[in-house]
């Protein structure tokens, strides 16, 4: 794959090389005043705006960068172009001029969105990280959040895994909540949106992340986890322009799990079946023609030695193609500006039966009504279509991750009796791993879950400059959403199969849900800018905002459609289910979520170098009981632009030096509505419709399964921030260093209740967490001349999360329950005061017992004195090993090959007291760095990101090291188990039990993994791995076609590019990918984060992209 990567790069390079050419512009035209506008390199600029100062006269440059304009020879011309510093040119009698525009140096004068207003970066007092839309667009990914990875200091982004609509976790400076979401508030042009995945990256102008309270307190109750502000591109004044961006992406899985190949699989499973008894062993031998049942397979196991594997993983998960197209049309004059954008993305999943498709249209109109009044309307329509099979990991992992457990031998290669598939324990338990008709491939194909959602977001705004310095602004947003889920579970998935013929007895089951949602947001702000004196300026913002949202749904589910029905028939005629099927109907209206807020902000500056900001917000939220509704969130910040001090101003190498400090509090109300009152609601689950006389009856259930708590109030986060911004050597090097300490108190936490209360959970304000950290970001120009421009930037983030305080009744123990009842200890994660969230607990793995640990007499292995025995409940029933008169003394658990754990407390036995912390899932630091090289028209970008010092709880690995009963007996294993300890081996073509020390020692000379016939899986450090990685996330090579080549085509700009996403990863992690974040919802009782969990994950894609940017 790596080779392919390099070849691909080479190919792209050589194809561009042939078009290298540099042509000069020439010619002149006549007129009153004529001119040409170029950039610093001499390239002409098309559609630069030229206006005569103080008049309405204006024009734009043509495709050759030229213009003519009527103007008096004494006039002053104003030349502007987006991204360049505007110039005023006094004609002083000239009739022909040449204007060279310089590119805007971003940093200091960059406009930053800070909440209800914008500021120049130079005036900022708080902590704000920004990334431009241009940078975001370099990573061709479906979800913008993935493109932000490694590019923003203090923002850690982890994608769940490789599924098409993978959840992306965004953490701004760690995250203070434990049980509730730590997702930041995401605002699209000021309006709340749930996820970044709906926003096409091509439409993004910039992303600003507010990190400290001085910036986020203006968002009050919703600001505790940071605020991400997405600003979309808006129309610019000037002649109409059209831009078209498109890419095609080929995705290929970067890695599959390394499972056993046919020979090894048979050898392992045969021995395993023997350990589980004849009822498992006999049909297995019959099926494959082994042992006592060779049938026509005279070669025994050796017949399978060189057989090629039938790889179920590749059948269900393989290459796919993604395409993305975006077209934007913009234009306008000084009164009216319009921007119309449309986007279409089709992301085919690598898993069969999965995709994500998005269509998006947005229209932005801005109209100047009067000199001092603007109105605008933003309309955004999004249509998403997602097909994805699986919810979350279960005790089997996902159907996808389950696929490696399917037999690696094609049916046509089976050398025994296929009738054995339908007999005995294979028929009872082996279907999911042995029957083609129930293979993961067949089951995934028989299940069609579609979710369709449409949303319409409209924002009408009015901006009124009432008097000089005083501006009134109002935004009214109305949103509507429509959703549908259509889930079809076909006859294979539901097992509606006639066993004799394989035909469907019923077609399948259909679930059809329609939902709608609505939202309203209305904000009003007044800003007043006032120069108190020559040296003192003040800017005041006062505002009010109200939000309201809600929704309804109606769901119909019907089962057992007649076998002649297709999926489409069923959805079209859902009442035509069979008489033995059921129809259930449910509807609900959600509790409206309302917030009413008042806020203010004052920015004061003295001598333009001493700055202070005070922010205050009061929020009333319908989430809480009337006594606890209102929360108040103040913040303040000071900044000193030291470089403007006369003493430092003299230093020519120092461009900017600013020191900032901030302190403030923000809130969090992220709990379900009505958590404070115990209500009833209509029940919808047929299991609870108590039948009287065999007829179901309607029932009421509690609206929430959590115990209500009327005392719930806001969770508050105090943030303290210190920062230094600097820029030196004519902005060749600039950077920011920030130090922070965030404390979250009165945590809104879902806590476990003892079942004796009748509830197993409630929400409470308990405990305290903190995050302390340092962030450093640097950006610099390494080399620059007329041909070359080499820049680099990077950031590194150190965050130390800590649980400061837990309520005394919180045990802090919680578990993934990943192997259901077979998990030991029950709670494999823990929260401990003074330690971070994300600690895994278990035994310390110490290899396995060997014959040397025992004395052997009369077939019995008796543990030697001083060698600790295992805990029965940690390992459960062990198959293939007897007790009493066989194999080991009554009461002893240990036997050669079983895993050995460290007797941590030295009490001579391995028990629950030896269970301790075995892994910390938190990285020591994370970060990213980028290198951008441009040579003439060629640009090359390389984007890296890393995580260092975190561990991963690799359950995919652990899950192959024990022996679930029944269906588990016939499962294929990961190849690491080829070296598992053996107590059965093949002698003269028969599977025999090895008993004497000599036999065991000889068969296990190379064993490196324990015996795995135990039904319960003890969690041990065997599952803990270093998860550090360095990833070359994206490499992009672009070529901008010289403009003079494009003149005839009337095209302003063409850039073609090729990029590779997920190029290479340096890691020691043995799983499919070290960036992993399996959802924790495996068990309904798990409410705390199971950080670093790898279970049931989809492999990540490596993507090869070819794209084009066109501007007309």
């Amino acid at each position: 794959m790596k080779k392919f990567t390099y070849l691909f790069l080479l190919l792209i390079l050589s194809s561009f090389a042939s078009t290298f050419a540099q042509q000069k512009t020439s010619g002149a035209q006549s007129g009153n005043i004529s001119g040409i506008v170029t950039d610093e390199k001499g390239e002409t600029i098309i559609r630069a705006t030229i206006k005569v100062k103080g008049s309405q006269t204006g024009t734009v440059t043509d495709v050759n960068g030229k213009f003519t304009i009527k103007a008096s020879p004494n006039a002053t011309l104003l030349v502007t172009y987006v991204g360049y510093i505007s110039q005023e040119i006094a004609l002083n009698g000239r009739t022909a001029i040449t204007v060279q525009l310089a590119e805007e140096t971003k940093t200091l004068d960059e406009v930053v969105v800070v909440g209800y207003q914008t500021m120049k970066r130079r005036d900022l007092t708080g902590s704000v990280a920004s990334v431009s839309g241009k940078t975001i667009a370099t990573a061709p990914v479906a979800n913008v959040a993935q493109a932000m990875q490694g590019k923003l200091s203090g923002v850690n982004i982890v994608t769940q895994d490789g599924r098409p609509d993978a959840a992306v976790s965004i953490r701004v400076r760690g995250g203070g909540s434990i049980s509730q979401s730590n997702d930041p508030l995401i605002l699209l042009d000021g309006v709340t949106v749930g996820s970044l995945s709906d926003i096409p990256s091509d439409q993004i102008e910039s992303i600003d992340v507010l990190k400290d309270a001085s910036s986020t307190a203006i968002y009050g109750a919703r600001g505790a986890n940071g605020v991400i502000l997405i600003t979309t591109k808006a129309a610019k004044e000037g002649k109409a322009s059209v831009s078209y961006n498109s890419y095609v992406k080929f995705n290929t899985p970067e890695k599959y799990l390394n499972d056993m190949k046919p020979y090894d699989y048979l050898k392992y499973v045969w021995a395993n079946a023997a350990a589980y008894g004849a009822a498992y062993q006999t049909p297995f031998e019959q099926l494959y023609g082994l042992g006592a049942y060779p049938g026509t397979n005279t070669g025994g196991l050796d017949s399978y030695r060189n057989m090629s594997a039938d790889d179920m993983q590749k059948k269900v998960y393989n290459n796919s193609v993604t395409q993305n197209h975006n077209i934007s049309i913009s234009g306008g004059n000084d009164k009216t500006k319009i921007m119309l954008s449309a986007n279409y993305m089709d992301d085919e999943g690598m898993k069969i039966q999965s995709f994500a498709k998005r269509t998006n249209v947005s229209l932005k109109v801005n109209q100047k009504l009067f000199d001092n009044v603007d109105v605008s309307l933003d309309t955004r329509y999004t249509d998403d279509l997602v097909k994805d099979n699986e919810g979350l990991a279960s005790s089997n992992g996902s159907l996808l991750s389950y696929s490696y457990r399917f037999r690696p031998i094609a049916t046509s290669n089976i050398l025994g009796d296929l009738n054995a598939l339908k007999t005995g324990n294979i028929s009872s338990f082996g279907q999911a791993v042995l029957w083609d008709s129930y293979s993961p491939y067949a089951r995934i194909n028989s299940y069609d879950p579609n979710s369709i959602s449409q949303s319409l977001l409209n924002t009408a705004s009015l901006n009124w400059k009432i008097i000089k310095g005083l501006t009134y602004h109002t935004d009214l947003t109305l949103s509507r959403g429509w959703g549908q889920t259509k889930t079809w579970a076909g006859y294979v998935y539901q097992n509606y199969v006639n066993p004799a013929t394989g035909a469907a007895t019923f077609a399948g089951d259909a679930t059809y849900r329609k939902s709608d949602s609505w939202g309203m947001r209305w904000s009003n702000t007044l800003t007043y800018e006032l120069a108190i004196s020559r040296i003192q300026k003040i800017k005041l913002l006062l505002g009010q905002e109200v939000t309201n949202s809600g929704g309804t749904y109606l769901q119909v589910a019907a089962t057992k459609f007649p076998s002649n029905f297709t999926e489409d028939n069923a959805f079209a005629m859902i009442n035509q289910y069979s008489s033995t099927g059921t129809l259930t109907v449910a509807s609900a209206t959600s509790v409206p979520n309302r917030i009413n807020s008042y806020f203010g902000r004052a920015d004061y500056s003295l001598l333009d170098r001493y700055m202070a900001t005070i922010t205050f917000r009061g929020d009333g939220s319908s989430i809480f009981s009337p006594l606890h509704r209102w929360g108040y969130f103040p913040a303040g910040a000071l900044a000193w632009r030291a470089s403007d001090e006369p003493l430092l101003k003299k230093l020519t190498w120092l461009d900017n030096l600013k020191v900032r400090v901030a302190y403030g509090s923000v809130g969090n109300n992220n709990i379900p509505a009505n958590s404070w009152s115990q209500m009833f609601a209509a029940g919808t689950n047929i299991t609870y419709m108590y039948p009287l006389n065999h007829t179901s009856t309607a029932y009421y259930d509690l609206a929430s399964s959590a115990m209500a708590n009327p005392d719930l109030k806001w969770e508050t986060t105090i943030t303290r921030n210190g920062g230094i911004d600097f820029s030196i050597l004519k902005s060749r090097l600039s950077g920011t260093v920030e130090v922070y300490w965030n404390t979250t108190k009165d945590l809104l936490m879902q806590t476990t209740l003892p079942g004796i209360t009748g509830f197993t959970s409630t929400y409470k304000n308990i405990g305290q967490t903190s995050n302390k950290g340092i962030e450093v970001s640097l950006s610099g120009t390494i080399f620059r001349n007329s041909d070359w421009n080499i820049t680099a930037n990077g950031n590194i983030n150190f965050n130390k999360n800590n649980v400061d305080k837990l309520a005394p009744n919180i045990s802090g123990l919680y578990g993934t329950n990943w192997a259901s009842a077979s998990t030991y200890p029950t709670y494999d994660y823990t929260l401990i005061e003074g330690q971070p969230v994300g600690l895994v607990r278990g035994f310390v793995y110490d290899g396995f017992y060997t014959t040397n640990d025992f004395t052997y007499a009369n077939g019995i292995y008796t543990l030697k004195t001083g060698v600790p025995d295992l805990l029965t409940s940690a390992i459960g029933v062990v198959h293939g090993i007897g007790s009493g008169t066989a194999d080991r003394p009554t009461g002893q658990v240990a036997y050669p090959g079983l895993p050995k754990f460290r007797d941590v407390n030295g009490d001579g036995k391995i028990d629950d007291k030896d269970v301790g912390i075995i892994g910390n899932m938190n990285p020591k630091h994370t970060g990213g760095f980028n290198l951008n090289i441009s040579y003439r028209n060629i640009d090359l970008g390389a984007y890296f990101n890393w995580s260092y010092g975190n561990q991963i709880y690799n359950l995919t690995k652990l899950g192959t090291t024990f022996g679930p009963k029944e269906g588990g007996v016939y499962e294929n294993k990961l190849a690491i188990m080829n070296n598992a300890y053996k107590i059965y081996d093949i002698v003269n073509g028969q599977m025999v039990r090895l008993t004497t020390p000599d036999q065991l020692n000889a068969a296990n000379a190379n064993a490196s993994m324990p015996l795995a016939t135990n039904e319960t899986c003890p969690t041990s450090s065997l599952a803990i791995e270093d998860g550090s990685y360095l990833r070359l996330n994206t490499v992009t090579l672009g070529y901008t076609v010289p403009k003079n080549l494009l003149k005839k085509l009337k095209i302003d700009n063409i850039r073609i590019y090729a990029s590779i996403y997920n190029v290479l990863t340096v890691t020691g992690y043995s799983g499919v990918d070290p960036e992993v974040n399996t959802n924790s919802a495996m068990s309904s009782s798990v409410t705390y984060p199971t950080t670093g969990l790898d279970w049931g994950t989809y492999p990540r894609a490596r993507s090869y992209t070819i794209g084009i940017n066109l501007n007309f």
Partner: protein
Amino acid sequence: MIVITLCIMSSQCKKDFLTTSSPGNIDGDFVTSTTTETFKALSWCYSNYRANCAMGTYSWNDPISSDAEMYPENNSSNNLNGRLKPELLAVDVVSGGFNSFYSTLARASRIAAIIAAKPAYQADVKAGKATDWTQLYGEAIAMRAFCYFNLVKHFGDVPFGYENTYVESYKLTSRYDIYDNLIASLKSVEPLMYKIGEGGITAERISKTFVDALIGETAFYAGGYQTLRTDVTGLYGTVTFTLKGAVDSKYNCEYARRTDYLTYYKVAEQYLQNAYNVNNGTALLVTSDARTNANNPFQMFFQNMENFVVSPESLFELGNIQSTSTSSEYNYAFSRPSNGGSANSAPCKAFAALRIIPTVYYGEYDNADKRRDASVAVTGSNGDGNEVMNNFVPGSKTSGGISTNKWDDNRMKTINVSAQRNSGVNWPVLRMADVMLMLAWVKAEAGGEDQAAMDLVNLIRQRAFGNANHNISGLTGQPLKDAILQERKLELLGEGTRRWDLILSGTMSTRGIAVQNEMKTMVADLTAQGYHQFANGNVISNYIYTKAVSNSPTLTFDCTDVTNPVLFPGWRGQYDYSTLAAVASVVKGTTHNMAIQGLFTYIDPASAAATTLVSNGYKKTNWAIDIVNNAAVYYDNIFGGLTSADQVPRYYWPLPAGTIANLTEKNGYGLPNL
């Protein structure tokens, strides 16, 4: 504009703007606005009990672990508790069931409290009349008591009375205090509840009749032997005990009963009597059979369940519905087995978790007892429309031994052949025969009422034998108690009571060891001579002779003709699946019935008789030889954790980790804590 803005703002900011609710979120008053609505709130408790409490805690375990019943698989974790090996259990093995008991009783308490505050209810109480309101209140209180009763039964001493309150620390309550409390609360609601048959109340809801029985049963348990903790000082207060055997110092427990147990037996007698013939309403022991093809009123109780008819003999059964995911364990786990697939078979798979120990089937039934064949199945279904012998190879479905015959897909009025676990058969909780035999027991224990006790037993026996020729008489003291216990064993076989009879009578260890020895004797004989003869003359052999034959009707009923190999033993055969279009294609052949020779008499495989049978198409078929070959598995599955007759039996489930975490005491009896 500012004016408009301010106007709208002020209307938006009116005081109750932040008070939101959904018309779908409703309060206690709404859901109890009428008695019909109130039952919609209460009915959740019944469903939750069926789906998550019984199913989550003991549905499997109670009927598979006694000296009459066992589990069929080798080395399974499903019967660790049943084998009396609780130290192998995981702490959360029944956490779902435990928590569901409390969520059920907490909901019942909540609804009871809402009803109690209603003026309509208060007026009815004041008037002293039983109405729909007082019935609903009583149902809620009884549901709570029923859950606590079962918690104590399966977990021993548990935290009591913490429902619907936020607690940070809590402790165990003595089971004896809980019993007292439950009895008092049930007595307080019993007078104003409906008997079965009154006010539209059937046995599918809790009635005064059932509440009487529950008071009786609770008192009966309070007076019985139990395994108690010795590691929690002061737990049982001033209650004093009489011990069976010695204290188990390793696991800190003892097997004992309270010295004043007779006080409780008196209460039990009074209320069981009420349930039997004072407040029984329409409930009664069914003693006649109107069927033309059978005369077995005992079997009719189970046939009623398969016919979706609430039997008059039922005091309480939980409603169920066919073809849905509503925990239809009857006809799957507790039934005659089937090798069918999980779906679309004739009939579908029946796992049959519940097996009858062969010494009971062969040695303990009188051959004239009509209950034997209706209770125990020697054949099952092959899933293709054909009857097949059960076999004694450890396993499930038709492997794993002889099974219960009380429930069978073949006998459903409407058979669901589309998927397993979908029969829709109700869950039985209590029937009149059980009440009568408990009543007989307490009468015998209390002394002086021996004849009354024997009369009750004889009512059961007359039904079982169809005449009075097998009545007991002249018994007193221990022999009488043993006779009652034995009657319960045979009458209630496979219904989950025998395990508790052993425990409460203080004989779990002695009778457990006894059945192990009976099995060992049987195996020794089988090994030595190929058969074993029981005291009643019945013989179990290593081999039997079987032949597939066609018979009409394919489903069989009572048969007393021991020479008829097709019809004897009775209650076998198959439903005629070729008449069901959905699975007609699955049905194989036409010889759907099984003829059996040598089931109760020894046929020497070397004999001429054997040769003749083989020449007549019979096949020599493994029977008890599979027990011999797997004897260790049988010894392990029948109380494998019991090694001596004076051992303290440890039969409780662990309190789950979520409750143990902040409990003052930890799990006892050697149960895990983490």
